[in-house]
């Protein structure tokens, strides 16, 4: 059997943990730059907030209803996520937890008896909540896709399910499939859901009953067949090995205000590049390709949201590098190439890819032999920045006052990662 453990309104639950006055009150978390709502509690759903609503449209309602509003604090959520995952690994064993996202993990429960699954799920849920203060919902079923469905149903009626749903018989699986609308199925995107509805397929159960041929024809070939197999309890998706390294690393931010000057954009790009290079060095890699993009301002505040034009370009580096100064040099010349004067810009980003392990950088005949000196310098910069304060030491090209920085009006303290931001008790 497979389980999915999913944190309930994860970002909001993190914020609530250190702000108990918001217990049982509506709480929302805003996207980077306080753009729109990206997380909400059940109470906030009842007030009527939907996902991706722009903040400026609901700021009055938020004030009137005493809703807790927070800017996204990924330092904090990341640490809380690690705690949840570590707790899961402690209860069931390191090897059978597949961390799927910041607030979800799949568990491979092959070695557990079916009769024990309910009590195991209960133990998992209570231990995670006691240790970390985060409530989770758990769906258990023969395959990942069915586990996702089980979880969704558990979440829809938390009081009745106790946030746990085990689909351990064909009868229960059929009932679950009948109750789940097609557009809520994991792996069925909005476009496919529309198409399937036109073909008369409205629920998971309808999809369960289609032929393999139909899936191959209408659901993107092999992927569709795999999905149908999953619904029938046959494993199409296996447990993934934990990712050792990622294939690309990026840093993208929206500016706090629109930016028009090349110099300011270059500062931002330099800052994002050094952040990206830090992430790169943390996983002991070097990059061979660097890509820079800037996004122009959308003309009006429209809803649904329409992004502005994107300008992007990339180059292959002469040899893989993890050195901030080399990466900044490339990213700044790329920025100059794509910058068009006279336009307003709202966002920029740096993506590096073609990652190779730092220790085995292939020798290149045409390059000066050793970069070790630079690497030591970077290690020192990183040690200071991680150990003391972010950006204590930085490259001058990334600017000193950073007027373009993200807007984060409602940012909570980084309670769990900074000595000077600990939660205060009386």
């Amino acid at each position, binding site marked *: 059997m497979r389980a999915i453990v999913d944190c309930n309104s994860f970002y909001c639950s993190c914020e609530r943990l250190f702000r*108990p006055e918001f217990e049982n009150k509506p709480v929302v978390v805003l996207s980077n730059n306080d753009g729109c709502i990206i997380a909400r509690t059940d109470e906030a759903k009842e007030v009527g907030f939907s996902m991706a609503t722009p903040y400026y449209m609901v700021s009055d309602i938020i004030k009137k209803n005493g809703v807790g509003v927070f800017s996204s604090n990924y330092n904090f959520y990341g640490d809380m996520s690690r705690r949840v995952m570590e707790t899961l690994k402690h209860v069931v064993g390191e090897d059978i937890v597949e961390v799927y996202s910041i607030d979800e993990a799949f568990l491979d429960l092959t070695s557990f008896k079916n009769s024990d699954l309910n009590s195991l799920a209960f133990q998992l849920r209570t231990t995670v909540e006691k240790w970390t203060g985060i409530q989770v919902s758990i769906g258990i079923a023969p395959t990942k896709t069915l586990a996702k469905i089980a979880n969704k149903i558990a979440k829809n009626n938390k009081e009745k399910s106790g946030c746990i749903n085990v689909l351990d018989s064909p009868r229960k699986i059929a009932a679950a499939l009948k109750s789940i609308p097609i557009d809520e199925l994991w792996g069925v995107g909005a476009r496919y859901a529309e198409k399937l509805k036109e073909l008369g397929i409205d629920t998971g159960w309808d999809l369960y009953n289609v032929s393999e041929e139909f899936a191959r024809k209408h659901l993107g070939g092999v992927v569709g067949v795999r999905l149908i197999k999953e619904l029938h309890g046959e494993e199409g998706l296996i447990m993934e090995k934990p990712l050792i390294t990622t294939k690309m690393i990026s840093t993208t931010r929206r500016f706090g205000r629109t930016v028009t000057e090349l110099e300011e954009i270059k500062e931002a790009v330099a800052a994002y590049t050094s952040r990206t290079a830090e992430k790169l060095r943390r996983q002991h890699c070097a990059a061979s390709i660097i890509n820079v993009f800037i996004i122009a301002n959308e003309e009006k505040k429209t809803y649904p949201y329409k992004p502005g034009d994107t300008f992007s370009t990339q180059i292959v580096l002469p040899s893989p590098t993890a050195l901030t100064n080399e990466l900044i040099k490339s990213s700044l010349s790329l920025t100059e190439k794509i910058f068009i004067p006279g336009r307003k810009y709202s966002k920029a980003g740096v993506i590096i890819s073609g990652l190779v392990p730092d220790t085995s950088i292939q020798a290149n005949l045409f390059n000066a032999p050793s970069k070790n000196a630079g690497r030591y310098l970077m290690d020192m910069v990183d040690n200071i920045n991680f150990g003391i304060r972010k950006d204590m030491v930085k490259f001058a090209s990334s600017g000193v006052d950073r007027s373009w920085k993200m807007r984060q009006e409602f940012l909570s303290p980084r309670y769990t990662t900074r000595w000077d931001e600990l939660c*205060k*008790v009386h």
Partner: protein
Amino acid sequence: MEQEQLYSSSYKGSKDYTQWDVPVANATGFGAPADDYAEKGIDLNEQLVKNKPATFFMRINSDAMVGAGIFKGDVAIVDRSITATNGKIIIAVVDGEMLIRRLEIINGKKKLVPATDKLSGISIDDMDLKIWGVVTYVIHSV
């Protein structure tokens, strides 16, 4: 101690180092005779953080517990996985506020008791009391 570690299901702390992390002298001449006896050294985390995912640090911002040697500005180490029993110093949530107090349970009645004359105890029904975690250590700068 070894035996206990082997059979207990409790969290094993933050000892995530391997033998390669134990420093050796790297002497170039005669192998340093102390290398065979090398240890990792004392790690505060090992002593103070028994259960890493469940342990949080908090800053004391009141004189409520001065009698127990806990002063304003100190750092409290709070373990959420420990069960709060009579006499334990805990972080409690009362009216949405985080308080550090000693938990007193007499005949099933729970009370939050400060360690100072300037504040009075708070008696609470089970319903109103939410225990956030149990304080295990306090770091005090002298």
